[in-house]
């Protein structure tokens, strides 16, 4: 025997980590005379497929049987397996089968009179410990997301105390073999790395020679830096600086009489900044200018995208007819240009318009179309947002269970596609679902998660909404002092351009202050 055990320390740490885990599982499964329960946490479906395939290769002495419990509302795992597994497995005399159980986590909650309630499945697992571990004539492998196993640990301590075979896989490059389409845009966020980049750009700008003999070149360098700074400030949610640099860049471009794509891109990006910060008239003017330029220059490839953006401006202005008209034009142009990969985004927004109009069926129909196109054109990174909005539709309809499930799907997709910066909003909405049900603790727990993700991903400007909801929960609980703290936090995080939100928060502050003074 060698006396060494070395932890992987190289840059391929996670790959090595996962390979080690496979070795460990192999050892765990091999040569079993008695049944056992193995738990495997995998972050993504693709990784699950990979790991399972490798596992089957590594322990050929077993027959594997896969069962997905997603369609069933499981209360008793033992009973469900007894009912669903073939007789040959149930009555097997020796341990010859590994039964892979998928989708059990979907039975955690159930709906009772329209309310989401704990289904009791985890508590049942706790009671069934003896049966699940010792009684079957097969090895049970429970696959699930990490959160499910954490819940098991919290809520089924007796069961957990028997668990030694728990394996947590991490995403690694094996997973990357199934390529998700690259994300088209860099994630906007107030990240330190962006601050550093901005600083370096500004340093360069300061060091640009003022009286360079080649004025044109200096201007172009300046233009380049202005454009970069504008983009970076936009992604940093700094409207004023972004605006300043876009205008400077556009000014230089016009001065240098540069036309075509680079000019239109600046106008387009400035339009998008204006849209994001609710300067709708400016956004519309800019997009229309780009549209006109593109038509004049016969650059038809971008027309669909521009109509889409114009549709978004109208959508934000709540001018539904105009929004739908422009989205339809966008679809037509995209179809004409063979840009199916862009259908999903537009159908998603058509869905949003119908959602705003409370036309739930139309909204869902378009969200489904969006999902279809996003899936077949490899735009998985956008699926999270659509599932999130399907969640909102169901939330509005007070169909809590469906809302919850879609928010969960949204979270899963956002995690899988690296859109962590969007996670906060889904947790925020799950918080709202619980708040609606007056399940204050769960609501607060999810709002805290929302804050965690928003902070972690530099989405501070979105914190105001969540702190406001936390304040509302405390207010509902008659804890005005904590409510006030959170409303004040909400106000401090809400950008000044969000006038409606600011007004709502200020009203909330006034209301709880009145309540406090009445109490005193």
């Amino acid at each position, binding site marked *: 025997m060698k006396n060494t055990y070395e932890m992987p320390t190289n840059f391929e740490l996670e790959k090595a980590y996962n390979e080690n885990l496979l070795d460990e599982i192999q050892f765990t499964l091999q040569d079993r005379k008695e049944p056992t329960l193995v738990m495997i946490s995998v972050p993504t479906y693709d990784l699950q497929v990979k790991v399972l395939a490798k596992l089957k290769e590594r322990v050929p002495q077993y027959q594997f049987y896969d069962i997905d419990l997603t369609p069933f509302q499981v209360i008793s795992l033992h009973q469900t397996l007894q009912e669903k597994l073939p007789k040959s497995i149930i009555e097997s005399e020796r341990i010859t089968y590994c039964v892979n159980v998928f989708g059990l986590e979907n039975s955690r909650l159930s709906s009772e009179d329209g309310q989401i309630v704990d289904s009791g499945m985890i508590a049942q697992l706790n009671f069934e410990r003896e049966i699940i571990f010792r009684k079957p004539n097969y090895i049970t492998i429970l696959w699930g997301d990490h959160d499910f196993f954490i819940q098991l*640990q919290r809520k089924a*301590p007796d069961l957990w105390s028997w668990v030694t075979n728990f394996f947590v896989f991490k995403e690694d490059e094996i997973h990357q073999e199934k390529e998700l389409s690259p994300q088209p845009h860099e994630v906007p966020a107030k990240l330190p790395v962006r601050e550093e980049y901005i600083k370096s750009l500004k340093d360069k700008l300061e060091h640009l020679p003022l009286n360079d003999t080649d004025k044109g070149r200096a201007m172009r360098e300046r233009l380049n830096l202005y454009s970069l700074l504008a983009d970076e400030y936009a992604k940093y949610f700094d409207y004023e600086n972004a605006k300043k640099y876009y205008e400077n860049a556009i000014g230089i471009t016009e001065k240098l009489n540069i036309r075509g794509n680079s000019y239109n891109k600046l106008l387009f990006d400035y339009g998008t900044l204006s849209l994001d910060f609710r300067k709708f008239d400016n956004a519309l003017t800019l997009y229309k200018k780009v549209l006109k330029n593109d038509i004049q220059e016969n650059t038809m490839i971008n027309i669909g995208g521009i109509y889409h953006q114009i549709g978004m401006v109208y959508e934000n202005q709540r001018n539904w007819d105009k929004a739908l008209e422009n989205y339809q034009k966008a679809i037509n142009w995209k179809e004409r240009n063979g840009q199916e990969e862009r259908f999903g985004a537009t159908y998603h927004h058509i869905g949003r318009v119908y959602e705003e109009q409370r036309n739930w069926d139309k909204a869902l129909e378009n969200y489904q179309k969006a999902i279809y196109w996003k899936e077949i054109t490899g735009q998985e990174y956008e699926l999270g947002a659509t599932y999130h909005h399907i969640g909102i539709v169901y939330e509005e309809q007070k169909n809590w269970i469906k809302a919850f499930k879609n928010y969960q799907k949204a979270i899963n997709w956002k995690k899988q596609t690296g859109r962590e910066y969007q996670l906060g909003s889904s947790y925020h909405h799950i918080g709202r679902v619980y708040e609606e049900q007056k399940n204050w603790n769960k609501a607060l727990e999810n709002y805290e998660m929302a804050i965690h993700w928003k902070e972690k991903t530099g989405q501070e400007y979105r914190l105001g909404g969540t702190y406001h909801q936390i304040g509302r929960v405390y207010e509902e609980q008659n804890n005005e002092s904590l409510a006030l703290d959170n409303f004040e936090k909400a106000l401090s995080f809400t950008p000044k351009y969000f006038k409606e939100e600011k007004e709502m928060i200020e009203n909330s502050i006034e209301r709880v202050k009145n309540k406090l003074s009445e109490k005193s």
Partner: protein
Amino acid sequence: MSKFNYPVNDPFTARAVTEPTFEEDIFASNLYVNLDKVRGNEYLSDIKFDLGIGDDGSFHLTEEYVKLIFSGHIGSGKTVELKRLHRDLNKQNLYFSVFISIEEELEISRFEPEDFYVLLITKLITQLQEKGISRNTESLKELAKMFFSDSEVKKEISESIKDELAVNVEAGIGFFDFFKIGGSLKNLLAGETKTAKVIREVTRKNLLHLTQLLNDYLSDIRADIQAENLGQDILFIVDGSEKIMFEKYETLFVRDANVLIGINANMIMSVRIDAFYQIEKSPIRFTSRYVVPMIRTDKVENCDALCEIITKRIDFDTFFENKETLEKCIFYSGGCIRQLFRIVNVAIRKTRGKSKINIAVVEAVVDEIGNTLRESIDKSYIKILKEGDFEPAEAKVKEMLYGLLLLKYNGKSSIKMNPILEKYLRNANEL
């Protein structure tokens, strides 16, 4: 007959014998390590004293029927200690002891408080029958009438026990036979059977009357037991009741505790560590309450005893690089035997017989477990852990005791953080 030749030196066997689900008669296979010295055996002496057994082993019938509450962490060794008590006390000069493992006898998820009383009766009758006592007393007949008069119930039970009885069910079976349900009780009470419904309804409505009948039966049968030289008194040792659902458990041990106390037999019952503190606050007093403490790992003799638990099962030289490594496992176990097995089991899995377990392996195992422990709690728990003021009646502290995040040792102010969690939190600068 032991399952293996201990200590084992094959990695697959080592894996098996360190799993929490491993079943073995640890007394017959010489795996049992007496922890009285390290854990303190006062509580065992006290239990025996409460049960009327003197230091010299002499027996005195207790003046009252004693009800002892026996608690301890998940994995602290309660079952082993209760089994040992059963083994020590189930003697003709002491007790006719009936050991009941609720987890094995009933389907816990469907447990109702009423089932407990039926279980006591059926287990007692079954065990007595094994010893040749099958007296059908008047009180038992009354009890049978209460439970089994319904024709559908009769049919269900007859069907379920016909093989065991090997009698002609068509010809009918006697009332007494119904109490021989034994192993079938689990199925009957777990399903949506008429038997389950009737037994529970009847018990709920006639709980006090039922206790009176049971007491009368106990009184009759006690005389038989003494006459047959099977024991001087009756003792029930109930294990696994801590696993039943909290509200059912609360009904049994807190709300209806007076009924339990009113049963004329001595009993030792295991309870959840979190509920233990609730019972302590209850106005209804059980005779005594005991907690199996975690073993302090800072004393050499304690550490040696814990080492012995492992080295009796797996071969030290085959699996461990040195003594220091095993001691590290013990340190991180916090004196919780199941946690110790878990550390060693995962370490075996990581080395797989290809290398010996060394400190780096143990640290890797502990980090892995620590991460999972940390993930199970939020910042409000961390706050309590940071403050270090562990008031056992406080809800979150109770929860953490139940979840093994906090460990209870002997003495006052003796609740401490699980060392694995503590290490993890310190490394993450959360403490």
